[in-house]
């Protein structure tokens, strides 16, 4: 296939990748324009976009098994945590056989392979069950690991709080080739002055954003490729009617095991890049069951069984989080600073508007996310991407070009 044909087949993929690629400069340009206040208030900052990347990848790995085989992996945090802890412990030289200073790309892969193995162990027991029982037993496994890791003194002197990565920033790129690797992390990452002699400076945060983005992109295409292979078709067949798939002659048990291992692998990749960027891991932000719940919520908002949907669901979630918190701008700050004193002090059913903003907007993202989630389940059960696909009668990448051609005539 020629390159141009390939580009045409992946026009929508390219457009999305381009949008992510151009986001930092566009955001930066807006911040330098008269719309700066609105930009900080209503557009997610780069730090939030980085969260979108690793949590989005995690949600996609969750969707890979849950959305395509129909087996809800409620213990998916086990893989995210395994990836995160492996990377963190390896960076601190605490993994036997993995010397300190082993390139991050290698420890990332090792952690992911380990998580795939963990998935096989959990799966070998769990896949004897179906439906809600499968969901519950995987959740049980993850909670057991969570409790263990919380009290495992080897991790650090205070295992409940997890551990931090000491030393240099971890680099994404080609292992052992410094020129082709970029260190990530908010404080430890590389920043680039005068990119390619164009006089553009790229901050450490933006470098991390691009480096993590590259990993997510590669992982997405790998999963997408698997789902469109004959193996992926069998996964869907299992979701649609497992008995029938067995009657056609597939040992569905092993197909589910393999799918679970792949899903665990990419879940750990997400955990690994999260650890590399945040430079600290704790049981509560990796192995905890609410980490899985986040993926579940964003997957349902983005579209179950769509693979890319969870990324958009995560983007939506993080955007809401950013707008409704004061960490970087946000709606509350915008209103407090933008509105005149008289309006802020105005009486609103016995409370001033300012007090109302402080209580009903500031830091209330989980409340509104909950409301949005309920509305989605009720009115948009197929999620963002699922609904768009229904409207277009097929995958966006295939149908959108046809649609557009129709309008061009």
């Amino acid at each position: 296939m020629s390159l141009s044909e390939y580009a045409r087949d992946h026009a929508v993929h390219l457009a999305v990748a381009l949008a992510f690629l151009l986001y930092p400069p566009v955001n930066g340009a807006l911040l330098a324009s008269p719309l700066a206040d609105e930009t900080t208030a209503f557009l997610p900052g780069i730090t939030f976009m980085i969260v979108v990347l690793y949590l989005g990848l995690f949600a996609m790995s969750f969707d890979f098994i849950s959305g395509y085989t129909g087996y809800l992996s409620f213990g998916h945090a086990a893989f995210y945590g395994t990836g995160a802890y492996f990377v963190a412990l390896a960076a601190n030289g605490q993994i036997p056989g993995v010397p300190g200073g082993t390139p991050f790309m290698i420890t990332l892969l090792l952690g992911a392979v380990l998580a795939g193995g963990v998935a096989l162990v959990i799966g070998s027991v769990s896949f004897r069950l179906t439906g809600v029982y499968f969901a519950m037993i995987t959740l049980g496994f993850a909670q057991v690991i969570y409790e263990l890791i919380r009290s495992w003194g080897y991790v650090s002197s205070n295992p409940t709080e997890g551990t931090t990565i000491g030393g240099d920033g971890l680099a994404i790129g080609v292992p052992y080739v410094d020129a082709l690797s970029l260190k990530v992390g908010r404080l430890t990452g590389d920043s680039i002055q005068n990119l390619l002699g164009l006089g553009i400076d790229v901050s450490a945060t933006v470098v991390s954003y691009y480096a993590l983005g590259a990993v997510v992109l590669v992982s997405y295409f790998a999963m997408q490729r698997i789902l469109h292979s004959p193996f992926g078709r069998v996964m869907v067949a299992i979701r649609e009617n497992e008995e029938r798939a067995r009657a056609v002659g597939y040992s569905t048990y092993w197909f589910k095991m393999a799918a679970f291992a792949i899903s665990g692998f990419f879940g750990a990749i997400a955990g690994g890049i999260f650890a590399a960027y945040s430079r600290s891991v704790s049981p509560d932000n990796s192995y905890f069951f609410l980490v899985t719940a986040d993926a579940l919520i964003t997957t349902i908002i983005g579209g179950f069984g769509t693979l890319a949907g969870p990324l958009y669901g995560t983007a939506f979630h993080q955007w809401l989080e950013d707008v409704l918190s004061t960490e970087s701008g946000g709606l509350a700050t915008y209103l407090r600073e933008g509105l005149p004193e008289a309006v802020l002090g105005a009486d609103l059913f016995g409370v001033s508007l300012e007090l109302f903003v402080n209580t009903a907007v500031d830091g209330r993202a989980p409340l509104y996310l909950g409301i949005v989630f309920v509305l989605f389940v009720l009115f948009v059960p197929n999620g963002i991407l699922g609904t768009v696909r229904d409207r277009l009668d097929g995958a966006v990448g295939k149908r959108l070009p046809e649609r557009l051609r129709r309008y061009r005539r």
Partner: protein
Amino acid sequence: MSLLELDDVHTYYGESHILQGLDLSVEDGEIVALVGRNGVGKTTTLRTALGLTPPRRGTVRFKGEDVTGTEPHTIADSGMGWVPEDRRVFAHLTVAENLRVAAHAAVDPDARLDEAYDLFPALERFADKEAGDLSGGQQQMLAIARGMLGDNDLLLVDEPSEGLAPQIVSDVVEALRAASADTTMVLVEQNFRLAMDLADRFYLVDHGVVVEEGDTAGVTSDDERIRRYLTA
């Protein structure tokens, strides 16, 4: 040697005793119909043969080999196909993908797909449509085509005429007749006339055992020994 032999099989769903010592044998090349009222164990007989609900007692022999308790996918791979009731196509796979998934064991899947399209031209027209969007009759065609694709020596067909308009039913009958040229068939069918029309022999099942059997030639539902078991 019979192609399929069920010998005194007892099959349960939990505590309910469905097949209570059923015997049945199918010879190479014939079409055998299982008839009887609702809930007497016809579908269960097919599921037992394929290993989806293995019997607690009794033996299932396929091509002379004891396959009692063998995993369904192993039995399926050894040449037994299933066209389940309600069609049960993989709704979110396209027609072509449904066929391809079923043809995985074939040496040349593409050639097998072409054969299926020759037999059912409608399927080729809708090859890229999701199977769930097809009409009931088309889904039934797809289910039959899928059953034939696996290079099966025996095809278990469950209620092919269920829920279909009379005109479509005759298309399905034609399809089954065409399919039977290549493969032995066990047919579960509510429509007694249709069953007698298609099959060479029949088994009449009641309360989990075979109560009558014989050639279909000349048998009508007015026959006293049959009417007794078919009227409610």
